[in-house]
């Protein structure tokens, strides 16, 4: 069965390169042209006001690289990143990983490697972003479990009902309001709090 190939989207076709002038960079530029990409090259630092989201991918030098070159902190690279590795010494690899490398390309770069590195880094980055978003949403729901318990208790008191009946009522209200149970719970608690504060001030 043939795989569907990954696609180099049109909006990803601009690369950011952080490397000193070197034959490796010239070979990279040739490859970029071949695969329909353009590149902006910076050294020794990325501009502090750089809008990286205008780029599809970052290639950064792992050999001479250091944290001060980047206008963002380690681990918060806003676009897919490819480490350009000359020395495979573990200290350098650890730094590249900490900077958020999604893929790597061994130097010297000559006539290949850019295309697959861009695709793999983009895919790894997208997967990482999706996972991070899902984890954030799950975390949020976990946080709201407390709200569900509190809202259930509120309804038990108001309706003088059992926990099961109160939870059923909460769920029905959520469905009627087209909200998640957690969101409806948060809303009920907020409503109760505003009532109490009106009562207090009266």
């Amino acid at each position, binding site marked *: 069965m043939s795989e569907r190939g990954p696609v180099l989207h049109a909006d990803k076709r601009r690369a950011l390169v952080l490397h000193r002038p070197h034959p490796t960079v010239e070979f990279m530029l040739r490859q970029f042209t071949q695969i329909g990409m353009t590149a902006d090259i910076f050294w020794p630092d990325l501009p502090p006001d750089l809008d990286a989201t205008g780029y599809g991918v970052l290639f950064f030098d792992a050999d001479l690289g250091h944290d001060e070159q980047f206008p963002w902190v380690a681990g918060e690279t806003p676009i897919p990143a490819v480490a350009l590795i000359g*020395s495979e010494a573990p200290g*350098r690899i650890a730094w590249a990983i900490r900077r958020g490398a999604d893929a790597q390309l061994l130097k010297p770069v*000559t006539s290949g490697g850019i295309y697959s590195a861009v695709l793999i880094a983009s895919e790894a980055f997208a997967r990482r972003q999706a996972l991070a978003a899902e984890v954030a949403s799950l975390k949020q729901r976990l946080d709201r479990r407390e709200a569900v318990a509190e809202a259930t208790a509120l309804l038990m008191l108001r309706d003088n009902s059992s926990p099961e009946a109160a939870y059923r009522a909460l769920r029905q209200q959520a469905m009627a309001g087209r909200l998640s149970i957690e969101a409806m719970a948060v809303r009920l608690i907020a409503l109760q709090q505003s009532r109490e504060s009106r009562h207090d001030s009266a």
Partner: protein
Amino acid sequence: MGFLHWGSNLEPGPDKIAIGVLFSTRGSYASLGREGLHGALTAIAEINADAVHPFKLVAATRDPAGNTEAYAGLCRDIIDASGARFIVGCTTSWSRKEVIPVLERTGTQLWYPCPYEGFEGNDHVVYVGACPNQHILPLLAFVLERFGHDPLLVGSNYIWGWETNRIAREQVERQGGTVRGERFVPLGDTDIGHIIEEVRLKRPDFILNTLIGPSSQAFVEAYWALGDADPAFAPEHRPIISCNWTEGEAAALGPKAAGHLTVAPYFEAAPTAANHAFLATARRFAPAQSRVSAFFVQAYAAVHMIARGIAAGGRVDAAAVRDDAKATSYAAPFGPLRIHAETNHAILTPQIGRARADGAFDVVSRADAPVVPDPYLVHAERRQAPVRQSPYLRVVT
């Protein structure tokens, strides 16, 4: 500079074989580059003068003057101009990385004669110098037991210092020690007063010095002044240790460098007949090189191994010559030298040397047996290193 030919114009002929020689004699690591250059040229001159082999070697010499970006072009130039299939050269890892693409494109073999930080194993490179399990690990094993577990690390700001210090930190922490501080200075920088002040305040048990050239010299000299003012910082209490310190550098500082420690497979003061014969050869062909170190000897040995491999196979074949060095030991001035088949690195016996006031190193410890190179540190005993086997003793001399 003696009577050696620099950039000899001799054309290689049927009985003449070109050897590329690519070292920097200027720049921040010039003294090490000069040792490599003179070591290689001495062996070439010796082989030619004594008719050791049925051919003459012709040196194709280029000097990148410490400029990393110049190495690849000059390497290419050597090969194009002389047809050399072998290059003896490079001191820094950056320069070695620069020439590797040229070697790969042309099928040329680099004989790299210096210690380095490991994590490489290119098929086009023969690594004649020590890798970490032959330099920093045995050196640390020696000092951790005797001086304490809490060092300060200082190095030149590039891969050699970064990685050697990182390996040291791992090893120190595995043994229950604490790195009291770590400082890097730009290559060639001699402004190191702030580091001496940090040493004074933090009182480390020893100092690992991975500085290069003038920075290292400035540091050792300034540390001597500190020890002169406060005996707590004398080398017998808190030594400086280094994996890249040479006889020439120690001699330049004389008594100010005495007592500090280094590690190498060769020391000039070795009291053997083979070494005395070698030193006579060095004096004969490289009279300008007043002191020789492992950097000189390894370049010298590389040329001899190349020539012997050519003679053995009867042809100028870079890969066959490399394989000959794996199959047969060469009698180097420091003992039998063979290249490890799997890694292309030399099998070496590390020795710990302590500097004397005249710049020679006394051997204070030697590995029991030759150490197989482990450039990726996958087999090194650091994996099962014992934790503080015994209360350490300070060396009192």
